[in-house]
């Protein structure tokens, strides 16, 4: 009845679908932990996607492609950083503007790459894991970035909780006035966090154009940036839950595509809603504790910082 090959194929597909979300959402998580909401994730992913694709196609060097994708995302995020941190522009408006700007800029620069094909980043065999019974083959069909994303989640979780840098970041996001009073540079910390968030979104975008569908299409992120933003909130700013949510989203996305293929007697639009609904529902259910949310949500989130003279 249950087709093992199909299940494994769905699993592989789900893990890959989740990877760009993990990158982008982890970046946004760090930005939000510093007290800023950057709604420009979608735009930063798009410039990352076009930059990554361009480098991947012309050089065939995917390490370089992801690096340039990261730089492109970070460069765009600096626009947001300057607007928000120095010009005190409303964070939400600045983020929305960034999404529009990123969409337009990537479409403009992407014109000459439109419709070109390349051989994307290839899977690697994970030694050890690939020897596992039944699921072993999954670990021969995933590329290295899937693992990098998970390592990044673990690293960020550890850094936030266990390092000085993470503590200062959380402090700035929790109460920028107190952090300022203690002598931490709120602006510098936030600027660095925003650039990091941009770089992570850029990597997420490059993953789309270099791995999932190795080509460039205008607007190819198709709302994944927004999912990433939502994931951070529903995951109550916890990296582990971000990964969980992204996996869930990936799994339901892939399953509903298979469901559509099997001709289920449910309108395809309803099926297409499922990943969003299921992800949000599950994350809401596991993070119902209001006290814990209060402790996890950065206190200064979305507020402009004006140092008092």
């Amino acid at each position: 009845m249950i087709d093992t090959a199909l299940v494994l194929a769905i699993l592989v597909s789900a893990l890959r679908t989740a990877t760009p979300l993990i990158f982008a959402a982890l970046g946004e998580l760090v930005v939000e932990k510093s007290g800023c909401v950057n709604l420009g994730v979608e735009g930063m992913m798009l410039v990352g996607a076009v930059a990554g694709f361009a480098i991947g196609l012309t050089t065939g060097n995917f390490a370089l492609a992801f690096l340039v994708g990261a730089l492109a995302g970070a460069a765009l995020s600096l626009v947001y950083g300057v607007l928000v941190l120095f010009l005190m522009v409303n964070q939400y408006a600045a983020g929305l503007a960034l999404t529009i700007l990123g969409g337009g800029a990537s479409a403009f620069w992407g014109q000459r790459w439109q419709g070109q094909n390349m051989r994307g980043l290839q899977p690697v065999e994970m030694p050890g894991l690939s020897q596992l019974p039944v699921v072993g083959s999954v670990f021969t069909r995933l590329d290295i970035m899937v693992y990098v994303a998970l390592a990044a989640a673990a690293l960020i979780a550890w850094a936030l909780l266990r390092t000085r840098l993470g503590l200062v970041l959380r402090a700035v996001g929790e109460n920028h006035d107190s952090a300022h009073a203690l002598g931490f540079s709120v602006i510098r910390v936030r600027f660095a966090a925003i650039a990091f968030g941009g770089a992570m979104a850029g990597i997420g975008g490059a993953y789309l154009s270099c791995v999932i569908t190795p080509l460039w299409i205008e607007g190819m992120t198709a709302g994944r940036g927004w999912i990433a933003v939502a994931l951070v909130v529903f995951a109550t700013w916890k990296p582990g839950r971000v990964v969980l949510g992204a996996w869930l989203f990936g799994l339901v996305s892939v399953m509903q595509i298979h469901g559509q293929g099997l001709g289920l007697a449910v309108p395809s639009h309803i099926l297409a809603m499922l990943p969003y609904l299921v992800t949000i529902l599950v994350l809401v259910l596991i993070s119902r504790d209001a006290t814990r949310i209060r402790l996890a949500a950065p206190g200064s989130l979305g507020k402009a910082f004006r140092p008092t003279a």
Partner: protein
Amino acid sequence: MDSATISEPRPATSGGAEAPPRLRVESVTKQYPGCLANDDVSLSVEGGEILALLGENGAGKSTLVKVMYGLVAPDAGTIFIDGREVAITSPAEARAAGIGIVFQHFSLFESLTVAENISLGLDNAADRRDLGRRIREIGARYGMALDPGRHVADLSVGERQQVEIVRCLLQDPAILIFDEPTSVLTPQAIEGLFDTLRRLRAEGRAVVFISHKLEEIRALCDRATVLRGGRVVGTVEVAATSVNDLARMMIGRDMPAFGSDHAGKPAGEALAVRNLSLSPADPHGTALDDLTLVARGGEILGIAGIAGNGQEELLAVLSGERPVADPGAVLLNGRQVGRLGPGARRRLGLGFVPGERLGRGAVPPMSLSENGFLTAHWRLPLARRGIISPRRRAAFADRVIDEFRVATRSRATAAQALSGGNLQRFIVGREILAGPSALIVAYPTWGVDVAAVAAIHAALVALRDAGAAVVVMSEDLDELLALSDRMAVLCRGRLSAPMRVRDCTPERLGLLMSGATPLETADAA
């Protein structure tokens, strides 16, 4: 700073060509738009000396403190440490120069733990090592039981201050500045703090102690520098100056009368809680345990207790922020209101002044007239069918500002722009003018200047004389003893039967508050 200089106390009265003072501030001037906060302010403090910095809110103390800590760049002025001119342009530089500070407005992070908060204030990695143990150690040494793993969000005002104090002490500073540190401590804890401060003085450190409480300054400090309107009025030897003289220097006239005459005439029951047991909403909170409270019209009932013994929970139950399942567990003028929320209870005649003025007592960025409207409209016809009457709203705010002498440019000023004392005058005034039959006041004079304390006390007494029940919750025992007609002690979620205030002594209350003497709870009829 080498440790030999710290550990050798210098006689404060050495004559001749003595060494320069540990800290000297020379001619500091700071102009803010529309306000000269510091005008040619100078002071000096020796190692082995406690200097009182005395002044009303708005006298320029906070600005001076910020200048000394590198948070504010003065327009003019110099700071000398041990005779050497130092440029202090950031808190890190201040800490490196040996200056530690315990702020009045805490610079704490609610979602972080005690240990994380303290770690943020320590610049050297070496200081941060083994922090949990050292926090417990210093806490134990100075009588502050702090759990390093708890989140600050779950701590009371008093406990938060302890975090600030421990953070400061961990850096072993040669110069310590305490910005109104005693306002929330029990008498025993104040004595403990004073012991600590005296020990710091004996270790040769220089201590700047900021307080409004003149008796404390008399008990603790060597000299006092008095500020008024941004200028130094004078620096005096405390031992040679009377409390009244200090007050006159500080406020420019005689000391206003505090407290009440204790002549309340308890009448019928106005606000009551009956046999209420309640688990806390917060994982670190305190459960209320078979708590019974009866406040009668025409009396001021004081509720004493150390922070974290159920104050937050009891306040939430009284105000209606936390409705309870049993409607009869809370009674207002004989009506069962247990299930009603704050708005419905206000309509029935309850007034509430919460401890946190900004954020709970008032919406910080909203104007005074808006803040006045937000609570008063339940009782007074400031709106008709949901449409606000701007004229009546303005008239109400103006009446509060006028009758309670709130110093503000206008009713359109944002609540957050007011000083603590002025905002408290406004909030208390707003509640009283809504004509409550029972008023709950939490920490009424926390961080409030002398004149405002007197005004707030007088207002509460007048409300009592008008027949309302006034419930005052405070950690400041002196204030409760001065103000209350009857007092009850809250300890571990249980409330003692009320005692007449003349039967209370600070020692007896202190023992009840710390749980050393078991409470006799009231018998609920």
